[in-house]
């Protein structure tokens, strides 16, 4: 056993224990650690944003390099703060509209291409897609299962007709695929959460207490 002498490891370990104490019940130690976390995170974000974004990209070029035109985006950005003045709070719509217009303009074509067109291509039964599984001759089987799964799941979400007849059958198969998907997602979620617990315990038992190497 080789207990850490680094003060920061002690602080990290004690704050971890404060957070873990919530597993027993809510208590002042947990609340202290939670508030400290929120405060430190905000302080860190504001400080680093000022020094690494505002200063090098706007304030410094404006005042030291004479890039006067930068005053326009600065003013537009500052309009976000009008939210605190009810009389002119409508002006916040200007930066929001600009940001939304830009983001939507870039996001829509990219999303359609990456998430719709390419995914449809990946579902179509082609020899190229059979090879994508790296499963030899069984690749065709996986592709067919994927194709059935996509079609049946989509049919489950078709609500313009009652789920009877062919639509009833496909939507029921769709539910099976959805449930398998939920099961896989839940299994992965368990793995993720346990991994986080292991990470903290590795820190407590290793870096702090020195029980494990």
């Amino acid at each position, binding site marked *: 056993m080789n207990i850490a002498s680094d003060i920061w490891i002690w602080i990290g370990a004690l704050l971890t224990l404060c957070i873990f104490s919530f597993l027993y019940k809510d208590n002042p130690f947990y609340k202290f650690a939670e508030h400290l976390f929120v405060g430190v995170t905000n302080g860190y974000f504001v400080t680093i944003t000022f020094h690494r974004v505002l200063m090098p990209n706007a304030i410094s070029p404006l005042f030291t390099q004479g890039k006067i035109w930068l005053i326009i985006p600065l003013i537009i950005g500052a309009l976000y703060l009008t939210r605190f003045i009810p009389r002119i709070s409508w002006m916040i719509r200007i930066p929001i509209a600009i940001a939304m217009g830009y983001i939507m303009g870039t996001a829509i074509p990219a999303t359609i291409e990456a998430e719709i067109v390419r995914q449809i291509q990946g579902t179509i039964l082609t020899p190229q897609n059979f090879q994508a599984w790296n499963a030899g001759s069984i690749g065709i089987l996986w592709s067919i299962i994927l194709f059935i799964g996509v079609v049946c799941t989509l049919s489950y979400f078709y609500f313009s007709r009652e789920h009877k007849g062919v639509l009833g059958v496909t939507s029921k198969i769709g539910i099976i695929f959805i449930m398998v998907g939920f099961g896989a997602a839940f299994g992965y*979620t368990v793995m993720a959460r346990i991994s986080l617990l292991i990470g903290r315990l*590795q820190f407590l038992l290793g870096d702090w207490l020195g029980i494990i190497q």
Partner: protein
Amino acid sequence: MKIFEYLSKLDRRIIYLILAVVVIIPLVFPKPQSVRVMEPARKLFNAVNAIPDEKILMIDFDYDPQTQPELQPMAIALLRHAFTKRIKVAALSLYVQPLGLAKAALDQVTEEFNFQAQTNADSIIYGRDYVFLGWQPPPIVPLLGMGTSISNVYKTDYYGNKTDTLPLMKNVKNFNDVGILVSVSGASAPLWWVAYSQTRYGVAVGAGITAVSASDFYIYLQTGQFSGLMIGMKGAAEYEEMVASDLKVQGKRKASEALGSLTAAHITIMIFIIIGNIGFFLRRRK
């Protein structure tokens, strides 16, 4: 049958305690676990291996302390792989929170290699073998801007050096000089790289993701939009295994060491689920 009813009403704190014990025992008394490397991680390893000499590996660090246990071992294994194969690395982040973790990973692996290095050529040197570009918000700027010019997006690196003065960056202008971009992320960043950078500039994208988001990202592997994938702590352990067995690189393998605890915890949770379900059906029959 009363035992199932009792167990299904068990205080959640007892379950937490059992889980803690189950996780701690394999950590304190470790037994070597064999790691079976799965296809997604193998694909990523092969894609990084195939980076030509004139191109670099770009690593996007996009995780914070919440997902560090799953993702930091991936980043470390990737860096060990790159430095062993003398692949140049450019590291960056789309968010501010990961900067400290990215620096810690880069420092750790650089120190590991320089500890064993005997000559300047063997050493890993900042600016020559790797650069840390840091953070440039908003994310859309690096996602699209680096397709034209990396040094225009990151005028200075994390340490304040002018990017275009760094030796590594002399031959690295834009995404054309990136062999593969691996996004190690606890959020949606890998998808952004695919949607914006790959769609527009054709850059190859790999990903290291948390297990919780695996089912969202698998589809991009099947379509070939991801060149490879590391999923959760298991994926990190698989990559560590390939780096250790294929490249003979030694070093602490945090994800592999955790597999015993992960397995034990999974078995325990499966038992709890089975007991809970039996208890539920027994109570319903009454």
